[in-house]
């Protein structure tokens, strides 16, 4: 945290303040590991407090012109929200799951002997079962964002968001359907309108936010997706005409193009996510006078994913290797039983050792998972977050001084629905 500027110089130069992220890898790893182990020994109960503490750390790392954000959510209210979500969701999920399973059985077929129609029926059934939970997922997305906003403070002033989760559900389903029907062509419309819906209900203190800009501007962010689709179409054409006329080089070229297109579409999707965030952030307005600018770089994000992913893969073999190595002493001597056929241990001794090895491997595996979660946070999640945040600038920040406080909100469900439905990712 850099407090220098605030404590010494009071007016930022050039009419803007930079936002930076000060979170470090060491403290974050320690926090994730400690809270992850507590979550493990409490059979998952501590996860509400873990989430709270990690968010507190992240929020306090975000620094705008010398002042840091504060997360005021508590583990207890999240636990309460979880209980509320259970009351509403347990019966629904249990009954729905069983009915869907039953419906699935009605059309379930032996995959070895089934004809195409039956298989399509099975796939359709699994899609429908996904749709049964979708409204709740979307509801949970809005509620979770609203909860996070309500528990965020900057300079002691609360952020907040109005009610509107069901309106979000309806719009998200509608625009989502449009995007699907248009084969993804209307994805920018969906992205823009949904963000606009949420932004228009967001506040800093008593000052409302607004989303400016045009949805069609987001097509610029789609360009790599279109290039990838073009390559894939071309590759399909090459392979088709190549196999019609038996020209091997054409087919080979087509296959290579398909691989390129396949990688390109992933890159294109990341490009879209990064650039649309930048566009939407740069066109947000707070109280008609405070604007923002954000220029996240796709290259940096992709590099973080690739390097972080490689490092994670390497470290996971080390972490789980250690877990298995720890179990080895228990197994020492057992293989010699099979070698010379002479029993040097009683059956009980063998059993005890086998159980010992099993327990060590089991615990080692679970602890290994916790370590990997912590590593993922410091190698991928936090660096990507830091990059996004680090490119944001607040324009005309003097107007922030004139913002006034808003009343506290006390929804009892916190982000319980998001927790119950496993959304929201790492933070």
């Amino acid at each position, binding site marked *: 945290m850099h*407090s220098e500027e605030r404590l010494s110089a009071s007016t930022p130069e050039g009419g803007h303040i930079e936002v930076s992220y*000060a979170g470090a890898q060491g403290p974050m790893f320690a926090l994730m590991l400690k809270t992850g182990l507590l979550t493990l020994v409490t059979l*998952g109960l501590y996860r509400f407090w873990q989430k709270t503490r990690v968010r507190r750390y992240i929020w306090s790392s975000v620094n705008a012109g010398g002042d840091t954000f504060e997360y005021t959510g508590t583990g207890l209210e999240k636990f309460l929200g979880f209980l509320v979500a*259970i*009351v509403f969701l347990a019966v629904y999920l249990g*009954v729905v799951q069983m009915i869907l399973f039953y419906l699935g059985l009605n059309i379930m077929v032996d*995959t070895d002997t089934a004809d195409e129609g039956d298989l399509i029926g099975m796939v359709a059934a699994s899609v429908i079962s996904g749709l049964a939970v979708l409204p709740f997922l979307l509801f949970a997305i809005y509620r979770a964002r609203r909860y996070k906003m309500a528990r965020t403070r900057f300079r002691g002033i609360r952020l907040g968001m109005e009610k509107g989760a069901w309106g979000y559900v309806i719009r998200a389903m509608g625009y989502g359907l449009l995007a699907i029907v248009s084969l993804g062509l209307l994805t920018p419309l969906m992205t823009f309108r949904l963000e606009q819906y949420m932004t228009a209900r967001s506040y800093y203190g008593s000052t409302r936010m607004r989303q400016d800009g045009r949805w069609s501007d987001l097509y610029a962010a789609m360009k790599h997706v279109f290039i990838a689709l073009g390559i894939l179409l071309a590759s399909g054409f090459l392979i088709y005409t190549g196999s019609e006329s038996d020209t091997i080089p054409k087919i080979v070229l087509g296959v290579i193009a398909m691989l390129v297109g396949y990688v390109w579409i992933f890159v294109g999707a990341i490009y879209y996510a990064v650039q649309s965030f930048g566009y939407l952030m740069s066109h947000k307005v707070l109280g008609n006078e405070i604007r923002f600018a954000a220029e996240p770089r796709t290259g940096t994000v992709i590099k973080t994913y690739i390097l972080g992913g490689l490092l994670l893969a390497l470290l996971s073999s080390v972490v789980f290797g250690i877990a298995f190595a720890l179990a080895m002493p228990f197994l020492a001597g057992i293989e010699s039983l099979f070698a010379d056929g002479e029993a040097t241990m009683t059956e009980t001794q063998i059993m005890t050792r086998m159980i010992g090895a099993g327990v060590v491997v089991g615990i080692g595996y679970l602890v290994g998972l916790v370590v990997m979660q912590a590593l993922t946070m410091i190698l991928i999640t936090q660096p990507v977050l830091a990059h996004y945040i680090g490119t944001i600038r607040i324009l005309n920040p003097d107007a922030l001084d004139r913002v006034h*406080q808003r009343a506290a909100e006390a929804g009892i469900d916190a982000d319980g629905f998001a927790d119950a439905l496993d959304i929201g990712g790492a933070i």
Partner: protein
Amino acid sequence: MSFAAEAIHLDGESGQPIRLTVTVDNTHQSLTGPGLHWPLNTIRELPDTAGGDLVILSRTENAVERLILKDSAIRAHLPCRRRSAPVANRPLLLKWAAAAMGSVALILFVLVPIMADQLANYIPPEGERALGQVTLNEIREALDDSGLEPVRFCTDPDGLTALRRIEARLSGEADLPVEITVHILDHEMVNAFALPGGHIVFFRGLIEQAGAPDELAAVFAHEMGHVASRDPTRHALRSAGSIGVLGLLFGDFAGGAVVLFLAERLIDAQYSQTAEAAADVFAHDLMRRAGLSPGALATIFERFAALDGDTRTFMQHFMSHPALGDRIERARRAVPAGLLPEPLMGDADWAALQTICSRTARN
């Protein structure tokens, strides 16, 4: 010892930070500054803060007001800075906790079983058979030690003929809702089970451990009992419902899947006790009607007990066949006085059945 430092005060009303100098007033036990009077024992420090070069203070009476200091020496003057806030809304929390537990108990122990029992009667036979087939293939793959191919079926023709004898004798007396399909798997496990759609599976281990044809017939009759009451299908429906709810409870934390699995096993074992007892009663009755002694079930259970030894006590909680002793007792009592069992097969057939795995096939 007096303390004074520069600080930023956020009054929680306007967004404007105010710079001021605060001092510790030892006589009044408070932190004071221009327009500021915070009793020391009400001051808390925000935990889990990044950087560590700033001390951010709040006080218990006001949720939004903050004091930010660079001088960490202030910590020595704050006796309660680490004390956590008291649990607010305790009655509300308890109310919802009770409601959540009630909701989960209702769904797991009332709604799911009732619905499973009802739905099981309406599942079309083809769907049920397909589910059984898929499950059987999964089991064969899961039990494979070689890593090359699923566990093979035992197919010695003479052995199969002998097995048919048992099947014919029993199914003539049993009124089953679906047709029976018997499989023998080439695996040393001493076990047998029924799958949805009338699939009954024996393992080589069980056939080798059985001392006489009647014992196998007893196990067969027991599995037919499961088929008659559609236990495997109800079980599958129940698992689908329970897992949906349990997944909700344990969340996405590391090892959540393991806990979920164990919890599901524990719940399942509760359901199964009644199902096993009912299948036993079915078997006693069927054996009598087929002219065989229900006591054979007791004999093979005793073999299980001898094999399991003392590992049973711990494993009992996770197995769906608890309290073997009681079941042996009940099978013995089910033997009618003066029963003369009609032999099932000759010695040659029995020998063929015991070596049914001398020939195996992939499908």
